[in-house]
C-alpha cells in the first residue's frame, strides 16, 4: 500500500513538532527514518497510524485519508506496551479475537517463532527482559499481517546478535507478505541494511532533511563496500541535520 504524507504539520503543547513534512512510501517498500532524539519520529509514526491527527496536511493510504486507526496499519510503539494481565501468548493473540481457536493458536505460534520467543509463550510480561518484551510487541503486530507496518525503534533494547537475527526475521516476513514498512531507528547500519530508502530528519521543527536511496540488490550481505558507502552518506547527512540546529538557534 502506498503511504503518503503531504505537508503535514503537528503542534503539540504549543510547540511546532513537525512542519510541512512530506514523504511517500511505495507499496511493499521499506523506509527507514533516522534523526536525533526528540526530532519528532514517534510523533510522525503516530500520525501515520491514525492515532493522532495532523494539525495541517494530509496522510493517506492508497489515496484514502487516514483519519483513525485502521486494520491495514500495524504500529509497534517505542515501548512494548504489553498488557500485564495477559500472558505473552494472549498478548500476541490480542488482535485475533474473532478467529477460531485453532487458527489463532497456529498464527500466534508462528509469530512467536519468528521473533524467537516460542519458549516464553506462557510467561507474564513482568517476567520478560526488555528485549523479550519488545519482541513480544513486534509479534503482536505482525500476527495480523498488516499491509503497512510502522515500527518505532523495535530493536533498540536488543544485543547485537539477537538484533541481527530479528532484522533477518523481519526481512523474511517482508519477503513473505510484502508489507509497506516504515522503520524508525537510531542505528544507521540497521537502516541501510534493511531499507530501500533512508529519510534523515532534522529537528525543531521536525522535517525531512534528506532522503537517501539504498541502491543495493536483495538479499543483501551486511557491511559490504556498497552498504558501507551508503551508511557513511547517511551518517554525514544525520550529522549535518543535528548540527544545523545550534547553528540556526545562534542566529
Amino acid at each position, binding site marked *: 500500500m502506498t503511504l503518503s504524507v503531504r505537508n503535514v504539520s503537528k503542534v503539540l503543547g504549543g510547540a511546532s513538532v513537525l512542519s510541512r513534512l512530506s514523504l511517500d512510501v511505495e507499496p511493499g517498500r521499506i523506509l527507514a527514518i533516522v534523526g536525533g532524539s526528540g526530532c519528532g519520529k514517534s510523533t510522525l509514526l503516530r500520525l501515520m*497510524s491514525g492515532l493522532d491527527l495532523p494539525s495541517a496536511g494530509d496522510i493517506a493510504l492508497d489515496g484514502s485519508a487516514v483519519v483513525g486507526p485502521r486494520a491495514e496499519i500495524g504500529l509497534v510503539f517505542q515501548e512494548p*506496551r504489553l498488557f500485564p*494481565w495477559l500472558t505473552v501468548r494472549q498478548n500476541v493473540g490480542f488482535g485475533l479475537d474473532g478467529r477460531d481457536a485453532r487458527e489463532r493458536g497456529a498464527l500466534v505460534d508462528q509469530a512467536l517463532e519468528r521473533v524467537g520467543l516460542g*519458549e516464553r509463550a506462557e510467561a507474564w510480561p513482568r*517476567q520478560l527482559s526488555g528485549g523479550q518484551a519488545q519482541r513480544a510487541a513486534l509479534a503482536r503486530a505482525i500476527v495480523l499481517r498488516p499491509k503497512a507496518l510502522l515500527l518505532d525503534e523495535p530493536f533498540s533494547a536488543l544485543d547485537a*546478535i539477537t538484533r541481527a*537475527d530479528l532484522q533477518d526475521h523481519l526481512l523474511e516476513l517482508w519477503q513473505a507478505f510484502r508489507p509497506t514498512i516504515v522503520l524508525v531507528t537510531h542505528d544507521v547500519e540497521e537502516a541501510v541494511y534493511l531499507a530501500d530508502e533512508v529519510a534523515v530528519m532534522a529537528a525543531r521543527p521536525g522535517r525531512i532533511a534528506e532522503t537517501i536511496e539504498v541502491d543495493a540488490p536483495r538479499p543483501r550481505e551486511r557491511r559490504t563496500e556498497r552498504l558501507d558507502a551508503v551508511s557513511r552518506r547517511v551518517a554525514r547527512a544525520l550529522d549535518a541535520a543535528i548540527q544545523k540546529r545550534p547553528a540556526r538557534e545562534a542566529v
Partner: protein
Amino acid sequence: MTALELPSAHAAEPDVRRRGSTVAGRWARPLLGLALPVGLALLWEAAVRAGLSDGRLVAPPSRIAATLVELARSGDLASHLAATAWRVAAGFGLGVLSGTALGALAGASTVVRRVVDPTLQGLRAVPSIAWVPLFILWLGIFEPSKIALIAVGVFFPVYLGVLGAIASVDRKIVEVGRIFRLSRLALVRRILLPAILPSYVVALRAGLGLGWMFVVAAEFMGASEGLGYLLVDGQQLGKPDQIVAIILIFALCGKLTDTVLVAATTPALRWQDVTGAEDR
C-alpha cells in the same frame, strides 16, 4: 553464542527462586505470626493458674474457650453470628453496588465527576457514626437503619477506589486498544476492567473491613441480637470472658471473609504476583 543463550537462562531464574521460597515460606511465615499471640495466651494462662492474678477482668484462655463452647452449644452463637453476618452482607452488598456505580460514572465522565465528587468528598468528612441518629429517625430502629450505616461505611472506600483506579489507568495501554480498533465496550471489557481490578480488590477489602467495624457500631445502638449485642450484654452483666470471646469471633470473621475475598480474586490477579510475591 553466549548472547543467544542468555534469554532462556535468564528466563528460568525467577521460577526457580519462587519455588524455593514458597516451600520454606508457606509454613514458616504463618507460624512466626502465630508465635506472639499464642505465646502471650499461654503466659497469661500460666499466670492465672499460678495464682499471680485472679483473671477476673481478663479471663484466661481456658475460661474464654469454655465460654465459647457454651455459647456454641446453646445455639446462641450461631443465631447471633447469623444476624450479624446477614447485616454485614447486606450493607456490604449495597455499599459495593452504589460505590462501584458512582465511582465508575464519575471516573468515566468528567461532568459527572465535577458535579458529584465535591459533594461526596464533603460527606466523607462526616464521621459515619454521626449519621446514626438521622438514620434511626428516617429508617427506624430496626434492620434498615443498621444496614444503611454499614453501607455508608463500605461506600466510601469503594467509590474512592474505583474513581482512583480509573484515573490511573495507563493511557499508553489504552492507546494500544485504539490501535486494535476496539469498540468502547470492548475497550472497557478487555482493557479498563483488567487494569482496574487490582485496585478494586484493595478497595473491596478496605470496604469489607469497614463493614465489620460498622456492624458493631450499629448493633451497639439497640439491637436485640447480633455479636454486637453480645458485647453490650457482656458489659452490662459483667462477663469479660464473653466480651473477649466475641472479640475473637469478630477477628476470625474479619480474617475469614477477607481471605475468601482474596482467594476468589487471586486467579484473576495471578499476573501481579509473578515478582515480589515473597514480600507480602
